[in-house]
């Protein structure tokens, strides 16, 4: 049985359930219970503050969205790490160029654009190679992850090094106009709102618009999509570039909201944790908010472990890898019969 309007099998049509019965609502309830449990029981036990967790989870949301959007079109973006780092370079370039002359009202939107642009540029390399010479995007984005931090290091160790900072490899401290506003006396910055808004926007685009539907068709069966007359290459390109832009926005938020200065090793591993966050929830943008919060909490708890028990920072990867492998295995076994 196939749909009259699209000519595609019925299960591919966007599900037209009443929103009150939407499974997302049930999942949101689940995440809500988790958050309440985390705040009331887990955080006091592990000596973790909610503020730290929210701030840490924010870049994970962006890096997760960077995976979720291309995933809808069947593409694997492992490059959040590089897109994040390269966007920070572009944002810092913008700050150094015009940061002292503009007010926050103009500068912050400009930096948002710079972040989006930086991420797009870096993922654009992979997207271009994907649609022109059919180079696998997973490998390409992965290899570029080793290049972007070197670009960053080149600038902070070289031309941008601030001589007044005891010769540490850091850029000039950003002017106040280039910092995201924070809420009251807390360190909670506007980027957290950006992250939630971005997740909602991605959900709307992927689940409610025609483009999102087409991307899903391309991801489900590219050959069928081609025969249905969809511009497969253009959709794949757009999905990967949009993913990069989201990771780039994450880089902008991190460097202007948290750090206020460009230094090496900002956000190392965030791209990979975002990858994990997105896979944990099957690339559903709204659930990503929950999984990012979960991983953010683990990450903050890992920091205190690192300080108290002397564990290296990367050992938190062990926990995350085990969680991902378990989820992948269970989901793989569960969907075995259907695929």
């Amino acid at each position, binding site marked *: 049985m196939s749909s009259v309007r699209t000519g595609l099998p019925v299960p591919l049509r966007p599900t037209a359930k009443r929103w009150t019965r939407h499974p997302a609502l049930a999942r949101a309830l689940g995440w809500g219970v988790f958050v309440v449990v985390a705040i009331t029981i887990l955080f006091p036990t592990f000596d973790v503050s909610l503020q730290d967790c929210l701030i840490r989870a924010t870049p994970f949301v962006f890096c997760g969205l960077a995976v979720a959007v291309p995933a809808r079109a069947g593409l694997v973006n492992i490059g959040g790490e590089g897109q994040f780092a390269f966007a920070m370079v572009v944002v810092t370039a913008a700050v150094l160029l015009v940061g002292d002359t503009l007010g926050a009202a103009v500068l912050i939107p400009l930096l948002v654009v710079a972040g989006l642009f930086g991420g797009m540029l870096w993922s654009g390399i992979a997207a271009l190679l994907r649609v022109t010479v059919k180079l*696998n995007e997973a490998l390409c984005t992965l290899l*570029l992850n*080793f290049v972007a931090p070197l670009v960053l290091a080149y600038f902070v160790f070289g031309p941008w090094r601030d001589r007044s900072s005891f010769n540490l490899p850091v850029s000039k401290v950003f002017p106040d106009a280039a910092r995201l506003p924070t809420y009251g006396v807390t360190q909670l910055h506007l980027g957290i709102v950006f992250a939630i808004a971005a997740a909602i926007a991605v959900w709307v685009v992927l689940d409610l618009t025609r483009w999102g539907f087409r991307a899903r068709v391309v991801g489900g069966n590219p050959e069928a999509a081609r025969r249905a007359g969809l511009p497969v*290459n253009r959709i794949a390109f757009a999905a990967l570039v949009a993913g990069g832009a989201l990771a780039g926005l994450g880089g902008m938020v991190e460097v202007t909201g948290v750090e206020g200065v460009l230094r090496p090793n900002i956000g190392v591993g965030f791209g990979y944790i975002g990858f994990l966050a997105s896979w944990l929830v099957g690339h559903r943008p709204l659930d990503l908010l929950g999984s990012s919060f979960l991983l953010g909490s683990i990450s903050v708890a890992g920091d205190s472990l690192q300080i108290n028990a002397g564990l290296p920072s990367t050992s938190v990867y062990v926990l995350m890898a085990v969680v991902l492998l378990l989820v992948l295995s269970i989901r793989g076994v569960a969907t075995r019969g259907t695929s």
Partner: protein
Amino acid sequence: MLVEDVLAGTVRSGTSVLFAAEGELISERAGVINLGTEGCMLTGALAAFAVTNATHSALLGVVAAVGAGALLASVHAFVVITCRANQLASGLAVSFLGLGLTSWLGAHYVSRSIHPLNRADIPALSDIPFVGPVLFQHDVLTYVGLALGPLIWLFLYRTRTGLILRATGENGAVAFAYGHSPTLVRYLAVMVGGALAAVGGAQLVLAYTLNWVENVTVGRGFVAVALVIFAGWEPLKATLGAFVFGGALALQLQLQARGVSISPFLLNMAPYVLTLAILVVASRGRAQRPPEEIRAVFGTTGA
């Protein structure tokens, strides 16, 4: 002499990637992509370093690496073969498992020293000018590495087991119909691949860096996966690819050692950018067909 130094360095620094790439090739020929190669290299490197540090025997170190690499690879094998999870995601997770475990367990070994894998010059041959230093003044693992490409070629194309392996990678159902278990073949291939990657990691610490640092491989395992595509799944071309990567590393080190005034960060990019560049060149050339079973994962038919 720059050319001689660079070429000798090429062989020395390319060997670790060579082992990893040949291991990945075996795995992919059986139909499983293993991005966990990076993790297998790291576990192999740490296992080799720790055991050599404790026993003063590099041989035991390499044996330990083989075991550790195969063990970690079997995790990937279980997740993707038995549970049928996404190969790219599982591989990346396994790499991170390897990275996390080795930085955690390896923290004690960071400033320790080892008795390295000795240079074993081949009599007579090593005295030949130019060729000697480039090819015949290395450690034992490098010689094994040089022979590895041809050996795997012989295995894949001239033995019955190799044929079964390739058949499994092309179409598991057909291999099954001929009475072979695709599951068993794939498990073995992934574990052998992981073990080879681990030997690459062992060579890296025992004969190249001579010390252990966190994330000592810096992406060599991922580069190896890329090189397999560049090589069009051919073992001899994979050897070539590994030495191209090694060459970029060696050239970069020689330029830095000679005080060329290029930023070291730009030079450090060279191996990765070069790997991408040769991938592009390779994919523009004659159409290279991946083993049928991994085609869906790589999705090169998609766009």
